[in-house]
């Protein structure tokens, strides 16, 4: 049976991290998470990892496999060459807890700041599929936080103090574009969410396991709404004229 060589990051916040190499037998159709489970079950029961559904539906097993932010349950072992060392590290943007597990509580804090969906009191609840195709794309998000991990504003510039990250622009877009929503989250997105920090380098879209067009459909759409309210004198003038009526 073919064997794979896995270099897995092990460490805690207090002791320096190191890579430990494991040899794992490879079965047909195996994914990286299976290999990690093999290590847990047979080689090292202490290896920490988060996982739940093993079907790319819950977004728990995010890690960096050979440096690529990915879901371990979706990363096939047969894409690696025979004898290739496979490096597995925790996602880098969030503080380490242990081994492959990180503290992602930042994301839950940000989520609380987004004003909820607010329908009009007299809404009829009749709307068409064409109205919600956009929103449904955003609601596919499984909160794996890979976009948060790869976004350089959080990852390298460490602007967690002023920037919500792609996941929460997607989430905001999901409520903002709901056909029955009557809220306006644009000022909040601009002033607290830090939408202007995004320089649309699209890494979030590249890593999204749900293939959500984060940048094109959510972030840029929101940025254009910000332009409407903040940077477009013509739009401001038109608003004033129509309000005057």
């Amino acid at each position, binding site marked *: 049976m073919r064997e794979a060589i896995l270099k897995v990051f092990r460490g805690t916040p207090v002791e320096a991290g190191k890579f430990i190499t494991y040899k794992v037998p490879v079965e047909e159709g195996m*994914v990286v998470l299976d290999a990690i489970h093999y290590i*847990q079950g047979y080689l090292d*029961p202490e290896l920490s990892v988060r996982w*739940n*559904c093993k079907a790319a539906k819950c977004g728990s097993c995010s890690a960096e496999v050979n440096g690529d932010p990915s879901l371990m349950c979706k990363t096939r072992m047969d894409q690696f060459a025979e004898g290739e060392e496979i490096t597995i590290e925790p996602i880098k943007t969030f503080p380490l807890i242990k*081994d492959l597990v990180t503290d992602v509580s930042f994301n839950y804090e940000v989520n609380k700041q987004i004003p909820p969906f607010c329908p009009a009191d007299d809404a009829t609840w009749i709307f*068409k599929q064409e109205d919600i195709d956009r929103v*449904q794309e955003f609601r596919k998000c499984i909160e794996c936080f890979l976009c948060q991990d790869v976004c350089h504003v959080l990852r390298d510039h460490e602007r967690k103090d002023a920037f919500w990250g792609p996941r929460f622009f997607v989430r905001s877009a999901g409520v903002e574009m709901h056909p029955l929503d009557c809220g306006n989250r644009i000022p909040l997105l601009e002033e607290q969410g830090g939408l202007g920090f995004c320089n649309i380098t699209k890494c979030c879209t590249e890593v999204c396991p749900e293939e959500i067009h984060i940048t094109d459909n959510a972030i840029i759409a929101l940025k254009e709404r910000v332009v409407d309210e903040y940077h477009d004198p013509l739009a401001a003038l038109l608003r004033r004229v129509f309000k005057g009526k």
Partner: protein
Amino acid sequence: MANYEIHEYDVLVVGAGGAGLRAAIEASAQGVSVALVCKSLLGKAHTVMAEGGIAAALSNVDQQDNWETHFCDTISGGKHLNNWRMAQLHAQESPERVRELERWGAVFDRTSDGQILQRAFGGHKWKRLCHVGDRTGLEMIRTLQDRGVHQGISVYMECTITRLLKDGEKIAGAFGYFRQDGRYVVFKAKAVVLATGGAGRSYPVTSNSWEYTGDGHALAYEAGADLIDMEFVQFHPTGMVWPPGVRGLLVTEGVRGEGGLLRNNAGERFMFRYLPESTRKDYAENEEESKRWVDAVLKGAKTEARRPPELSTRDNVARAIYLEVKEGKGTPHGGVFLDISYLNSERVKKKLPSMYQQFKDLADVDITKQPMEVGPTMHYMMGGVRVDADTAATRVPGLFAAGEVSGGMHGANRLGGNSLSDLIVFGRRAGAGAAEYAAGQEDRLQVSEDQINAAAEELEAPLTKKGGSSPYELQRSLQEIMGEHVGIFREDAVLAAGIAKLEEIKEELKTVSISGSKLYNPGWHLCRDLKNMIICSEAIARSALARTESRGAHSRLDYPDTDPEQAKFNIAISRLDGVMKLEKTPRPEMPADLKKLFEKKEQTNA
């Protein structure tokens, strides 16, 4: 003396899937303080794996539908073993609960006139499942999660509850640990709602995640509640069978709801042969009629044609697939073919996007071009904690249960789509019940240090031992026993042998040891989870041995027929002097007005 932190709330909800979240939202809305505890991160609960839809008689697509028909379908599907009151409340309230989700921001697929779209599912007479493509559970959990967050519920993530604390007979809180660093925590609470889901991890082939270790079943059992219908374990007919790493992974019933066909290796639509006489007339007679039904679904048109036999109830389809494979008519990897590739590929991708992705990414199968290979996978526990239908209260004062961990709602077999609606209907009722109960309790309850110390000692034990069995090894043995002895088909001697083996495992659990610290140590976590799994497994095996008939998901080779006499009782399990006690408890009689609904159904069918 154990070190621990203390938190005080009126209501503690254990489990943050659909039922737990809905219960927490309801309790909080009633004005009591609520804590929500979950083993994983918030929003990762098993509910996200629910794909096909929520059953609710909105009659948006099939106008003939109503709650009475939904009620009858549920009872028939459950082989008349359901708690009639639960089935009634479920059928009556699910439409309102679905509308409520929509008001909270859930975005369901639409009909052409802008209403919530509904699709067909096994055992449902009409198109009844409100859905969002094939990720309905995710939509539901996200909606509830966001609702809960803005309602001020305190959420404790990655926290495992290992013991319910009592003050005399009453529930007084719960003890647990944080997975992250192993620190202990005591929640003082007047009422506890269990919403912990099922116990699929005791089986080798399952669609369930690691969290499904029967925690709530075991907590309730140890606290003095009784478990009913534990013999009824649902094997979902369509799990992936290949490649090995994804064996058991769920393939939504939505595939069949959209027109997916089951075939054996000879290309035969074998399901025509497996329809039970009692329901045969609800299904298409031949391929031509079945095709007319599918064509009507595609056009969104009405039809006189009856649904394809693939949409029979899950117990029946699972057995059929099992037998086909056993008779050598299976696929190369030991499943049967499920084919949707004859439909327009754009439609398949639109209606079943995550199935398309799942097979493409994990099995190199393009479901728009090739058939899938599927086989049964352990999916759901019909049995669980016995509760009062209206308030979800168990027989332990202050203890409530909702969702998969509760028993009675689904009888001997659950219909697809009825679990998501179960979660929100009874999640809400449990939240309301717990809040009302908590508000009626005047003083803070007292928890003795002994209980806490005992719970802490139990957790410490595997860390202090050396050279015992590995918890992973033990879990593999347990899974093997359950797969071999308590699978789809059961038999007296095989079950008895299984129970004997479970007794051995129970002994072995006492010696289990693990190295390392308490810092996010999954091996250590598993040691405690194993105890719950073993309790559930034993309850399943003992109940299965006691029910000497075949009914719904419980198929006995030595008693192949359904025995009407055995519809009169539930098998209840409780703890007496530390030992599992079995009791046959009479089922509540269905009132005459509900019984009449079945007579009416017979007449329309005749």
